C-alpha cells in the first residue's frame, strides 16, 4: 500500500473505506437466480407493495457482470447447479449470496434424487432465509443483513 505512505497511515482503512462501504451497502443489486416458487415471492419483493428500491436494491440485474448479490430462489437440481455455479463465477468480486427458502438452504421438502440438498454444497452462502416460500419481508431482512455484513466486514484491503 504505497498510497498509505503518501496519504498518511490508516487513511485507506478509515475514511475511504467507510465511504466505500457506505456506497456498496446501499447499492446491493441482486442477481435473481429465480428457479421455482420463491422466484414469485422474489418478484413480489421487487414489486410495488414491498418495493425493494427503498433499500438500494432497485434493479434486478439479469447479467451477472452487473450484480452484487445472488439470490438463489427455489430448489436447485443437479442439472441446474452447473449453470448456477457458472453464473456465480462470472459475478465480479466482492459478491454475496443469499439462499432463499428451505429448498435452496437445505433441499427442504424435496428430499429426492434430483435436488441438491442445499446450494451451500457448491456456493458460499452468506445468508439463509427460512420459509417455504419466505415472505417478501424476510427477503428485505436478508438484504439488510447483507448490508450490515458489508458495513462491518468488508474492507478495501480485502479487495486488493
Amino acid at each position, binding site marked *: 500500500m504505497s498510497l498509505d505512505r503518501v496519504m498518511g497511515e490508516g487513511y485507506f482503512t478509515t475514511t475511504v473505506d467507510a465511504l466505500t462501504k457506505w456506497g456498496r451497502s446501499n447499492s446491493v443489486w441482486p442477481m435473481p437466480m429465480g428457479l421455482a*416458487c420463491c422466484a414469485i415471492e422474489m418478484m413480489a419483493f421487487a414489486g410495488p*407493495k414491498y418495493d425493494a428500491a427503498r433499500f438500494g436494491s432497485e434493479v434486478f440485474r439479469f447479467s451477472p457482470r452487473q450484480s452484487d448479490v445472488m439470490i438463489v430462489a427455489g430448489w436447485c437440481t443437479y442439472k441446474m447447479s452447473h*449453470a448456477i455455479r457458472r453464473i456465480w463465477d462470472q459475478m465480479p468480486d466482492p459478491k454475496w449470496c443469499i439462499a432463499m427458502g428451505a429448498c435452496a438452504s437445505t433441499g427442504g421438502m424435496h428430499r429426492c434424487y434430483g435436488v441438491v440438498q442445499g446450494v451451500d454444497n457448491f456456493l458460499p452462502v452468506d445468508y439463509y432465509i427460512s420459509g417455504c416460500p419466505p415472505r417478501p419481508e424476510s427477503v428485505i431482512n436478508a438484504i439488510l443483513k447483507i448490508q450490515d455484513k458489508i458495513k462491518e466486514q468488508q474492507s478495501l484491503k480485502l479487495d486488493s
Partner: protein
Amino acid sequence: MELEKKISRKKPTYFREHQEALYKSLEDKHATVEVDKSDPLTTRMTLNMGPQHPATHGVLRVLMELDGEVITKCRLDTGYLHRGIEKMAENKTYQEFMPYTDRMDYISPYSNNVALCMAVERIAGIEIPERASYIRMICCELARISSHLLWLGTMIMDAGALSYFLWTFREREKIYDIFDEVTGHRFTVSHSRIGGVNNDFTPAAVEKIRKFIREFPDELKGWHKTLDRNRIFVDRNSGVGAIDHEEAIAIGLAGPSLRATGIAYDIRTFEPYLHYADMDFVVPTRTEGDNLARYYCRMEEMAESVRIIEQCFDKMPEKGPIRVDDAKKSYPSKDEVYYSMEGLIHDFMMTDTGVCPPAGAESYHAIEAPKGELGFYIQSDGTGHPWRLKINSPSFSNLQGLETILDGEMVADTVVLIGGMDPVMGDSDK
C-alpha cells in the same frame, strides 16, 4: 492457437454426453432451408438461450439454429427443475403429497391442490359437502385470475412495457391478501383437504373477495383500453406464432393456447366437476391461433372468472359442513382432535395411513387449471400410498407445442412466444 486454448478452457465440462446429444439432435431435426450464399445476412448460426435468461420464465433452455434472423429449427431442453415429484408421491400418503402439488404450478397452487384432492376423492369414492365445493370453486377462480395476472405482467414486460408488471402485481397482492386471510399463507396455500377444505371463509375473507371482484373488472377494462388498440402491442403479437387448430390438436396444446385456435376444450364444460355445470359462463375462444388470440382468450377468461365467483356467492349455502363427517375418509375437525379421544385417534390414523383406495383401482381425474388440463392418474395398491401417480401437466404439453411453433419465427419473437405460452417449469419438469 492461443484463442482456441482460451475458448476450450472456458467451455463447460459437465454433463458432456448430454450436451453432445442435444446439439446432435438439433442437427438431426429435419428442416430444409435454402441458403443464399451471396447474401451475408443469411448466415447460419446456432444460438443457445437459457437456462438462466430473464425471459424464459424459469429455467428453460432453448437451442435454436438461425438463418439470418429466422429460426429454422429449435430444440427445447427441459428438466432443469426436475426433482422427481412422481417418485416422491409413491413414498407419501395422499394427504402428505398435497403440499408438493403447491410447488408444481406455483403460480396457481390452489388449482393443483384441488386437482389432487378430487383425483383421490374419485378413486376412493368420497363425496364432498356442498359448501366445500363452492369454496374450492371460488378459490380456483381466484387462482386462475392470479395466474393470468402474472402471465399478463411478464408477457407484456417481455414485449417491452414494464409498467404492466407493477400494475398486475398490485392486483396480485390483493389476491395474496385474500389467500393469506383464507388459508394462512400467501400463495403456497395447501388449503384443500381430501374430503373438503381445511377451514371455512372468515367474514373478513368474504368481504375481501367481494371487494376484489367488485373492483377488478374496472382494472381489467383499463388494461383492455391501453392494450387492445395499442399499435406496438398489436404489431408485436398479431400473426406471431400462429398455428391452426388441426396442428394444435396434433401437437397437443392445452388450455388457452388450444382455445385460441378455436377448439373449445375446457374441462369445466367438457366434463363438469364441482358445480361448474350450474354456472353460467362462456369458454372464450378465438380462431386466429396467434399470440394476440392467446392474449384475448386469457383476458376474457379473467372476466368470466369474476362472473363465476359472483354466481358462487349467490348459490353457496350460508352454513354447512366443510369436510366429510367420516373419520375414515377425512381429517376430523380440530375441535374434535383437542377435546375427544376418538378425534385424536382418527387424526393420528389419518396422518399415519390416510385414505386407502381399493387395491388395483386406477382412476383419472382432471380439472381445468389456469394453464390447461391438469390431471392425476392414480394407481392404487390398497395402501395409503399411491402405487403410481402420474401428473398430466399442461405446461408440459404447451412446451412441446412451443418447439413446433418456434420453427420459422423470428428470433426476436421467441421471448414473446414463450411469454404467450405461459409455461411454468415446475409444472412441466415434475
